[in-house]
Structures are given as structure tokens and as C-alpha cells.
């Protein structure tokens, strides 16, 4: 399984390094004094990434050839997929809904995902903890957290 993973990651990294090599070749060639220029360091790094990615791909291929046991790919548990999806939705909606409105349902669902089944706990901690964090940051540490920008929410 590790061999397959190495090949997949190696190929992805080869593509990324080739993309960065193209982008590096497009950088302006400004050389002041003896300075090797702004593309010098990226060239070293992208070339190194390319060489190492090829090495990792070859390692993966060799381990498969040496008879590494082939295993079927297992999908991550549903709750992990839900968690990642929830996080994406949360940070996408945050600028529009603001911290308070967006974080209360996010927090409550997360509590449920992490095994919280007590109804009272979900009902109380769900809104109370995000509100406490909001007030702690806004009024104690004077760090403003995002407010709602949707007109309907009074932003």
C-alpha cells in the first residue's frame, strides 16, 4: 500500500515541481550587483523537489516490484469526511455570517461528531462556548472577530 501511495504522491509532486519550474522561468531576470537574482533560489528548490519526487516514485515502484502486499484502498470514516466538509462550509460562510452565527451550529455539530450525545450538553455548550470565545476575544483581548456582512443579518 505504501508503494502505491509513494507513486501517487511522487507523480503529483513531479507535476507540481514542473509547474513551479515553468513559473520560475517566467520570473523577471533582475540582477543587481553580484546577486544571483530572484529566480536563483526557486530554481534550486524546484530542481531538488523534482529529483526527490522521482526518487520517491522509484522507491514506490521498487517496493511494489519486490512483492509488497497489495491492499485495497479504504475510504476514511464518514465522520472524518463530514468533519472536513463541515470545516470547509464553516470557513466559507464565516465572512458572510460572522463568527457568532456561523460558529454555533458548527460547534454543536462537531460536539456530536466527537461523541457528544447528551441533549442538555449539546443545547447548552453548543451556543455558550462560541459566545464565550467571542466575548473573550472581543472584549477581554480586544481582538475583533468577524461580524456578519449579510445585510439581512444587520452587518
Amino acid at each position, binding site marked *: 500500500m*505504501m508503494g502505491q*501511495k509513494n507513486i501517487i*504522491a511522487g507523480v503529483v*509532486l513531479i507535476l507540481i*515541481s514542473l509547474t*513551479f519550474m515553468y*513559473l520560475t522561468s517566467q*520570473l*523577471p531576470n*533582475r540582477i*543587481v*550587483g*553580484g*546577486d*544571483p537574482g*530572484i529566480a536563483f*533560489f*526557486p530554481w534550486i*528548490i*524546484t530542481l*531538488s*523537489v523534482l529529483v*526527490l*519526487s522521482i*526518487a*520517491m516514485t522509484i*522507491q514506490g515502484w521498487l517496493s511494489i516490484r519486490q512483492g509488497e502486499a497489495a491492499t485495497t484502498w479504504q475510504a476514511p*470514516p464518514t*465522520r*472524518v469526511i463530514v*468533519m*472536513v466538509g463541515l*470545516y*470547509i462550509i*464553516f*470557513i466559507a460562510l*464565516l*465572512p458572510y455570517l460572522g*463568527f457568532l452565527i456561523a*460558529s454555533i451550529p*458548527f*460547534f454543536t455539530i*462537531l*460536539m*456530536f*461528531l*466527537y*461523541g*457528544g450525545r447528551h441533549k442538555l*450538553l449539546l443545547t447548552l*455548550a453548543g451556543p455558550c*462556548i*462560541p459566545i464565550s*470565545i467571542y466575548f473573550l*476575544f472581543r472584549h477581554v*483581548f*480586544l*481582538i475583533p*472577530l*468577524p461580524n456578519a456582512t449579510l445585510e439581512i443579518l444587520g452587518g
Partner: protein
Amino acid sequence: MNESILQGFLQASLPINLMATGIGAFIGLIVGMIPGMTISSGIIIVLPLTFVLDPGFAIALLLGVYVGGMMGGSFTAILLNIPGTPSASATAMDGYPMALKGEAGRALGTSIVAGFIGGLFSFLCLYFIAPSLAAIALKFHAQDLFSLVFFGLTIICSFAAKSLVKGLLSAMVGLLIVTVGQDPMLGTPRFTFGQVGLLSGFHFLTALVGLFAIPELINNLFNLKSGTAEKKTDTQFGSILLNRADLKQMRKPVTIGSITGAFLGILPGVGGPIAAFISYDYAKKASKQPEQFGHGSIEGIAAPESANNAVTGGALIPMMTLGIPGDPATAILIGALLVHGLAPGPLLFIENADFAYTIIFAFFWANIFNFMIATSGLRFLVKLLSTPKAILMPIIALLCVVGSYALQNSFFDVYSMFFFGMLGLAMRWLKMPVVPLLLALVLGKQLEEHLRVALTASKGDVSIFFTSGFSILFLCLSAISIFWAFYANRK
């Protein structure tokens, strides 16, 4: 210099800063005790709160968490056979058998005392070695600094990875990410695609939050599924007071552990787990009763505990004097200092000598508070272990977003935190170490800057790196560390 020492001591001993150290140590002990939480995560949770605080208060708080976390990890290792932190893994080998024999209190007492002595020893190392090392580092030229940073990266790759290719690749991906933004010499934008948010590159702290916290949140979901995360804790563990014979038995392993830990802590990337296992091995070889190791030996707890606590002070030495983090936790501390406009490195002892000594003495107080809280509040701390993950993990998830946003009041930082979180998950899936990437993010800009300054000075002649003794030394050490890692991998 003497005035700076006094100022530093007075600053660290201000009641408000002492309070911060105490709170930090308390939080650190709790974080360290929770299986699945690392010290780095603990510091990340506290970090956003420190942005608006006085630098002295902030560093006292963070050092408290750092020191407390290291000790807290051993409590669950002894009571549950689940090391709270990787550094406490060696402690479990003898701590848990002692707990099974009904001597959990004695094991915890040994761990607390040994950790305290290890911490104090590393404070002395920090106090005496750091200023001298900073004075030497001031003589470094650009080529020496480049070679030093390069050495730091190679040693991290070789220690942090089972596969050298993956370790180096992780570091190179980190360096590639660092090239995004304005270049450090001329300020010309690179790989920004016209996005203003990318002009200053990715903020190091957002990367850190994402790389460490998000995979841990996911990992805890996995553990929840397999049911390995939760275990009931018994708070009836007897007295933690040690008798004279126990203290006498601890002398040799504590000495071995303290010296090993402080020395290995100075080497970037080695960290607590390696120091703990090496000192355990040394202590076993030096013991009159090696056969008791693994079956509940006091020496088997004292050596790794003193070692992993001594690592903390050791790791602060390269951080403060050279600007090179010894472990992920000190990398976060560098980020925290940079947020306050304080750049760790040799100039810290010249331009902000008072503050440099404030850090050193705050570290001393952190050890004192840690010991006091651990001895007096152990039962209460153990009870806190039963805090449900259903509350803890969502709080961490929320604080990741809040902490990233609070850095610059920018959603771009929140999105980049999430991007790094996904990158961290992918790396975990590939069994690719994340520490080289993290340290490349910390050191990458310096690496490029020193390289280009040196080459500019020599008009492009690369032989400049072989004209200075320091540079040659660091390059030789880099070569040795790479070849050693290659050799170890092949074995």
C-alpha cells in the same frame, strides 16, 4: 550585561508574569496529560491570546505551557500506559508496571522530582551557555549563517524521518512554499498570481496551526471510532512522597538523563522522545539492577523523565542564540516572538538583552511553578483528564480559526491555515514527517537571504562557503548528518 541579567530577572519575577507562568504551567500539565494532544497543540491554543499581551507576559505564559506539557505527558503514561506526549513513551515502560503493582504514587513522585531536576539543570545550561554561544554567533558571516541554517535543516531531516527521501522532500516542499511572496533581497513578487494576500507569503503561524492541529482533530475522530482514546483514570494512587532510598536510587539516572537531555535538546530536531530513550538505555547500562528495567524500576522512570524535561532548556539555546528552533514547540515560540517584533538570534542578546534574560528566568520560574502545581494539584489534574473530547476538540477546531484570523484580521490566513491542515493530513497519509516542512518554513527566508548575501559579496563565487572555518565545519556536519541518515536507512 549584569544589569541586563538583573532586569531580566526582575521582569520575569513581576507578579503578573509569575501569574502567567503559573497559568501556563497549569494549562501545559493538562494538555500534556491528554492523550492525542501534543505540547505544540497546547501552545497553539494559547498563542492567539498572546498577540495583544505584553511580550514578557506572553513568553512567560508560553514557556509555562511548554515546560508543563513535557511533565504532564508522563502522568497518563504512568496511570494509563498511554503517553500523553511522545516524549513520555519511555516513562510508560516502567511507570505503568509500577502502577500495576500499586505504586502509582511513587512512580508519579519519581517522575515529578526527576523532571524538576532535569528542568533546572537545563535552565543552568541555558543561563551559562546561551550568552556565550550568542557571542560566538555574532562573529558569523553570511556564508557561516547559510551553512548553519543548512546544517539545521539536514539534521532535522535525518532525525525526523524514517525515510531520508521523505524527510528531505518535506523540507524542500517547505522551502518551495517559502518562495511564495516577495523575495527577501529586492522585494520582487514571486508566485503571487496577482493576489495581494500572497505578497507577504504564507504566515508561518497559520501554517503551524494547520499542520499540527487539523491532523490531530482528525486523528482524534479516528481514535473515537476505534475506541482507543478514552480510558477511565483512577485518582486513588497513594502518596507521591519519596523516601530517602528512592532519592538515592535516582541520583545516577537523573544525572545521566539531565546531561543527555540538555545536550540532545541543543541539536535541532532531536527532541524529547529520542533523548528519553537514549538516556533510558544509558541508565540501564549504568544500573546495578538492569534486570528491573521494564518491570517497574525507579531508575527507568527517573532517567527519561529528567531527560525529556532537560530537553526544553536545551532546545531554547539554539532558538535564542541562533534563531534555529530545537523542536516544533520552540519553532512556535520563535513565531510568537516575531509577532511581538522580537527576532531570536545572536542580536537578541545585544539589542534586547533584558528580554533575553527575561526568557531565561521565565523558564526558571516555569520549572518552579510546574513542580509546585504538579505536587500539590496532581489529583485535581488527573480528574480533569475526564474532560470529554466532545467539548475539547470542537474548542480546538474553533480556536484554530480564531487564532489564524486574529493574526492579521484576514480571512486569507484562515484559508491558508486550512490548506496547511489538508497538507498535514496528506503528509500523515504518506507517513511523511511534518517537522522538516515546518522548520523549512521557519528557516527558509533566512537560508535564501544568507545564500544570496554571501554570493553577492563573492560576486557569485561559491568557494566563499569554503573560506571560513565555521562554514566548513557546518557543511562537514551537514554532510555527516545526511550520510549518517542514508547509512542508517540502508541498515
